[in-house]
């Protein structure tokens, strides 16, 4: 594959994330095998060492994320990836990185939980992702691709956002997004020398300028001082939310019913919207792309315009709660929820939409009542 090929190539989502990370200037990747993200770690193993960059298969998820912590502290673009059970283990390092204002990218190709759960696609790590995930008051930027192209584009963007806002950024996919193949146009290869200058805060290279020694830590035993840091961090999150909220609206303008879904659920829901439109029903799709910051104001605008909502998610109403908070109970919010690795079907989403709009659904083959 040439460095800046503009042509479309066929890739899995996991591979597109890995290749886009390399092109974004990911200098060091540390990971641990887990299904369904194994193509990602294999891609990194195949490419990074030969490029003179760093690849380590760590002894655990805990070790991997703390290797990322070290590389990020040294000012390098670093990444780890996993799936749900492994992401739970990584929460320690993510919390520490948030507390030390370290930028890095991590990927969760979500599978059914809780516990070992299944290896099938799920979205049940929504709350963990958008509320911080580990101990303490913090947030991470959460980006949710719904195509292989978006896997590449959002991963590429994620490294820039991490550096811009000095915080971890999560790519939240699922087993479908990670393992399906689609055509993708890859972003150009970044020259490492062109990456943002971190000499203002990273460790290492003191000899170049003779600056004062630096200490990267999340520790501050003076409560008032620690509180001030956290207040400042939350001010930064607010500013970040103003600039980085991302979403897609499809046929929402004239819709009576807006389906809200992200990732794989959004792909399924888009099919249901097309079915509904063919049947003459005014149904639209609102797809959050950034899950934190969540596009709350945009949903509220739709609620004020008199629309009602159907949330479709592969989790038990986790995002529906977020939608209800966003629209201040201005409109009814219905839910199609699946769990454990079950993916909703177009037919059942279409049927749910018809029911909400007061139309008796036609007999649906295999659909859920």
């Amino acid at each position: 594959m040439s460095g800046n090929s503009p042509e479309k190539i066929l890739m899995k989502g996991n591979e597109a994330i890995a290749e886009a990370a390399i092109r974004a200037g990911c200098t060091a990747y540390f990971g641990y095998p887990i299904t369904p993200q194994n193509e990602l770690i294999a891609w990194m193993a195949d490419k990074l060492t030969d490029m003179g960059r760093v690849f380590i298969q760590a002894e655990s998820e805990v070790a991997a994320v703390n290797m990322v912590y070290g590389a990020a502290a040294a000012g390098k673009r670093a990444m780890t990836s996993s799936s749900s059970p492994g992401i739970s283990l990584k929460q320690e390092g993510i919390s520490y990185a948030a507390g030390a204002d370290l930028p890095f990218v991590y990927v969760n190709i979500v599978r059914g939980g809780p516990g070992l759960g299944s290896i099938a696609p799920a979205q049940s790590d929504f709350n963990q992702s958008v509320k911080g995930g580990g101990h303490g008051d913090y947030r991470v930027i959460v980006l949710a691709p719904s195509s292989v192209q978006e896997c590449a584009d959002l991963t590429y963007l994620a490294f820039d956002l991490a550096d811009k806002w000095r915080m971890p950024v999560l790519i939240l996919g699922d087993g479908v997004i990670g393992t399906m193949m689609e055509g993708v146009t890859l972003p150009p290869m970044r020259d490492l020398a062109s990456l943002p200058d971190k000499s203002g805060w990273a460790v290492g290279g003191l000899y170049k300028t003779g600056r004062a020694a630096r200490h990267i830590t999340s520790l501050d035993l003076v409560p008032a001082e620690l509180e001030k840091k956290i207040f400042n961090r939350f001010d930064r999150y607010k500013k970040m939310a103003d600039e980085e909220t991302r979403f897609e609206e499809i046929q929402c303008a004239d819709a009576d019913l807006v389906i809200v879904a992200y990732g794989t659920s959004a792909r399924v829901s888009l099919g249901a919207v097309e079915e509904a439109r063919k049947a003459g029903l005014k149904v639209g799709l609102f797809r959050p792309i950034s899950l934190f910051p969540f596009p709350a104001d945009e949903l509220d605008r739709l609620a004020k315009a008199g629309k009602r909502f159907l949330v479709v998610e592969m989790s038990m109403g986790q995002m529906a709660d977020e939608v209800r908070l966003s629209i201040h109970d201005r409109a009814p919010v219905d839910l199609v929820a699946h769990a454990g690795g079950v993916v909703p079907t177009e037919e059942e989403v279409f049927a749910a939409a018809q029911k909400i709009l007061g139309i008796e659904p036609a007999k649906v083959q295999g659909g859920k009542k």
Partner: protein
Amino acid sequence: MKRIAGHPESLVPVQSKYCGGCGHGIIHRLICEIIDEMGLRAKTVITNPVGCAIWADLYFDTDTVQPPHGRTPAAATGIKRVLPDHLVICYQGDGDLAAIGTAEMIHAANRGEKFTTIFVNNAIYGMTGGQMAPTTLVGQKATTAPRGRDPVEAGMGYPIRVLEMISTLEGTRYLARGAVNNPGNVRKVKGYIRKALEAQMAGVGFTMVEILSQCPTNWGMDPIKSVEWLENNMIPFYKLGEVKDEIEAVKASGTATVAGGEK
């Protein structure tokens, strides 16, 4: 005029928070003297542990990084891999290294990571107030072993000889154990640390110096008594000396890789 004594440049000239008779201060100073002698202050990154030496970043006038409890070898791995021309020191206590961080330590050693671990073994948890450590001796009292460490009946297990345990790993190239109980041993420790840090910069592989150290506060004795206790109890179990030294063999084999610049 050549200065032959004085406060090391790499050590911040402040009163430390360490208790009277604690060994951390001596060990900090030895590390800083060697960093100065090697002229590497501006090219050093130290990862400090969770435990009493969580304060190390107040005292080392070098760049430092504070990872979670026990994860110092993982963070040091990340730092050294992207800054291969820097001197990276992973400073750890016995709980950090041999309990919560056992996996990280063993695998960093096994990969032959080219940083140096300074392992301070005082056979007790200091910061949290005297709980049993993985290196607490059989019969030694701790708040969580109030009648003494009982390996069998109470199921508390046995003290771990870390260097001997990891000496079978091929990635480990220099392993030495010293103590800071008297001036002679302090001088020997300085020699071990110097050898380890020089080996790191020569790219030979994983190096660790374990240092037996006094904790009068949590051992419940005055500093003089604690030195005697270390001599009479710890040294007989944790034998002093170089446990493994393959530095010259690795150099002769041509597999030592002197690190280039930043990634």
